[in-house]
């Protein structure tokens, strides 16, 4: 008879088989047997966070920057409820997470026991799937299935709830057989005809635009290479969503910037006026489309996505290709190369007028701002940060708000997996713990959280984690003392009634840094900014950088509520012409 293992041992056997190196977690009563077993498995390192939400975001940062699933271990009750925000965040942004939660013993389930909650019930709408394991014999199968569900198709979070008695119970374990039959939820069966149709559209287009999203990143680094080849081959302008930044080099001439609510003038106008729109791995999010009725009214639309439920959900498309981005784009390249010699030249001619138009839009310099030599402008701060870090492989995370948009607009990403931001859920407090996870995955790389002072206070305690594990993350706070994006909307939509958006009692971030045992740097003046940024980069350890910026700066360009892509507010000078209408306010 084969050896019997406890549930806790099985958990680690499975994690070892899945080649898991790091777990982000926090112990508690209902997971103690698993924590007890940790010492026997040297290949798996546990990162102790300070709050379970931090564990979730750290695992997200780890997963997004490495392409491997992030693993989270939490206890029952509050442990599980604290991780719900991170699970929802991962679900919205398609990040593969495997969360293991402890549960009260099976005989106590349903009795309102101490630290009991209906974890699978609570997390059902924010996971791809979840399991409550009530039979020890099911445990190995469930854990392996969980990894498969998290990683395959459109990735996402899963949760396994393991009652304490199951962690003690014994069963035998058979090693994971690789290449088992997939669970039928993967769609990669696009047809030749669809690719032919795509190429027909490409050959006919006079005003095309490629619009890419996070799906390209999720398809793996190879997909970004394939995309580059494809876009250079066809010579089309390309724009990207917030989540897709880095898939195509941000400093390339064919890249016309991010699109959407705070996207560039050229990208949004191209979306509006184009006659062919090729969506690759994006989902027509409402921050992208603006007003649906007037979204890209003159274009044929193509949608390439691995998730069939993304097709026609918001925007009706003319050609849908369901499949893995890398595979689809690769076969398109193959076909083009086979059939159309000289396509590059004919394409160039056909769309040359379109490029002229785009150049005209570009001259508007929609990301421009009026710099100052008295105050640090937040945009200037991000630009300087970019200039001073662009020569090394830098990973950027962000919180949520104005600073996030400025980072997206002014920091240029040339590689995938270098940009970690909470796009779908918009979770303030994401960036700092995410930076912890990124640094774990890339110990020798420069990891910077471009933060706002309000967001970063939500998960500030994770600085303690960074110090514990010697993670030299840099927290670059654009401190304007306001919840900037809230303030901006109040200014534009609510008659400057700045209700509760000013933080009156901010901590001294330098002292706070010192209290955590890391370095604090403060910058007030544009003249000292460069030196201080260099000081931050050169310091071998975690840093909190308190960058005091102009508190009145707003994030432009902006598509105001109720307007289509071609009616943007461009900046301070343009504000008067484009007042937001009364009724628009209520629905934002």
């Amino acid at each position: 008879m084969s050896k019997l293992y406890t549930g806790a041992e099985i958990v680690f056997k499975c994690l070892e088989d899945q080649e898991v190196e790091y777990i982000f977690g926090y112990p508690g009563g209902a997971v103690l047997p698993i924590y007890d077993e940790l010492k026997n498995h040297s290949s798996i390192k546990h990162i102790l966070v300070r709050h379970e939400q931090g564990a979730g975001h750290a695992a997200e940062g780890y997963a997004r920057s490495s392409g491997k699933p992030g693993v989270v271990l939490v206890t029952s009750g509050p442990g599980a409820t604290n991780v719900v925000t991170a699970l929802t965040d991962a679900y919205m942004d398609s990040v593969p997470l495997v969360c293991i939660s402890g549960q009260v013993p099976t005989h106590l389930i349903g009795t309102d026991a101490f630290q009991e909650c209906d974890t699978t019930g609570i997390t059902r709408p924010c996971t791809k799937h979840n399991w409550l394991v009530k039979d020890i014999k099911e445990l190995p199968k469930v854990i392996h299935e969980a990894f498969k569900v998290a990683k395959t198709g459109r990735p996402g979070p899963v949760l396994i709830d393991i009652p304490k008695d199951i962690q003690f119970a014994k069963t035998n374990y058979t090693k994971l057989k690789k290449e088992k039959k997939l669970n039928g939820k993967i769609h990669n069966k696009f047809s030749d005809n669809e690719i032919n149709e795509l190429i027909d559209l490409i050959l006919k287009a006079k005003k095309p635009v490629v619009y890419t999203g996070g799906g390209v990143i999720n398809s793996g680094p190879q997909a970004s290479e394939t995309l580059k080849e494809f876009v250079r081959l066809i010579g089309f302008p390309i724009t990207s969503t917030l989540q897709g930044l880095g898939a195509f080099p941000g400093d390339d001439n064919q890249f016309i910037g991010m699109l959407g609510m705070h996207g560039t003038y050229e990208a949004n106008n191209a979306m509006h006026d184009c006659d062919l729109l090729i969506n690759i791995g994006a989902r027509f999010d409402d921050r992208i489309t603006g007003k649906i009725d007037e979204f890209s009214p003159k274009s044929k639309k193509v949608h390439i996505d691995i998730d069939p439920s993304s097709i026609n959900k918001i925007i009706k498309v003319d050609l849908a290709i369901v499949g893995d981005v890398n595979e689809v784009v690769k076969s398109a390249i193959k076909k083009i190369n086979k059939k159309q010699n000289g396509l590059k030249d004919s394409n160039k001619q056909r769309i040359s007028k379109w490029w002229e138009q785009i150049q005209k839009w570009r001259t508007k310099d929609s990301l421009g701002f009026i710099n100052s030599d008295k105050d640090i402008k937040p945009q200037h701060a991000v630009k300087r940060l970019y200039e001073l870090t662009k020569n090394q492989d830098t990973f950027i995370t962000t919180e949520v708000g104005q600073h996030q948009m400025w980072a997206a607009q002014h920091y240029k990403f040339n590689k995938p997996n270098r940009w970690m931001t909470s796009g779908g859920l918009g979770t303030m407090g994401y960036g700092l713990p995410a930076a912890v996870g990124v640094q774990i995955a890339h110990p020798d790389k420069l990891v910077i959280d471009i933060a706002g002072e309000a967001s970063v206070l939500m998960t500030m305690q994770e600085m303690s984690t960074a110090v514990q594990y010697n993670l030299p993350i840099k927290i670059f706070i654009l401190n304007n003392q306001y919840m900037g994006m809230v303030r901006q909307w109040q200014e534009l939509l609510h008659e400057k009634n700045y209700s509760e958006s000013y933080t009156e009692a901010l901590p001294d971030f330098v002292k706070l840094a010192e209290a955590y045992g890391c370095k604090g740097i403060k910058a007030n003046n544009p003249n000292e900014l460069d030196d201080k940024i260099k000081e931050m980069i050169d310091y071998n350890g975690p840093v909190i950088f308190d960058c005091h910026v102009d508190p009145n700066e707003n994030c432009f360009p902006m598509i105001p509520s109720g307007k289509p892509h071609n009616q943007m507010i461009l900046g301070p000078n343009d504000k008067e012409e484009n007042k937001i209408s009364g009724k628009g306010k209520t629905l934002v």
Partner: protein
Amino acid sequence: MSSPKSAYSIPTKKGKLDTHIFVVWVDNESGVLARVVGLFSGRGYNIESLAVAEVDATKNISRITIVTTGTPQVIDQIKLQLKKLVPVHKVADFKREDKKVIFKEMALFKIVAQKKKIEKCLKECKKFNPVILDKTSKSIVVQITALRREIDKMSKKLKPYGLTSTSRTGAIAMTRGAETFK
């Protein structure tokens, strides 16, 4: 400005609503119904009726039949979202008007009345395969199988005859002919 405007899409023109019957084959495991129903409530889809039971004990398969209304776009989304659920094996979707599909619902009526009225009741029910399940001198429990609209009509009609209690199932569906849904 006449229409309210927003960065979000607002349903300016409401599309035509169709009634559809979804048949969903799922693993019969705990929580599976909650997943299906939660999907409907979470995404704001409507459930008109619901019927669920295990149909294959060896393979552990349950069959869920859901009647819902929505625009063609919403119906499409429901189908695709259902297919994404891990315990869902296959999803069939029929229009209520579809002639190739049989829909049936069952209802139990309790009528408390004098003999004469009870007899009239039974006569009214004749078209819908009435089965008398219980009978006393002043009451009767009768089972009928029919379409939703017909049952609606019947329960209205029987009110004056002493109908005191109605219990009914959700619709179940099956295709006509030798073919089965794959």
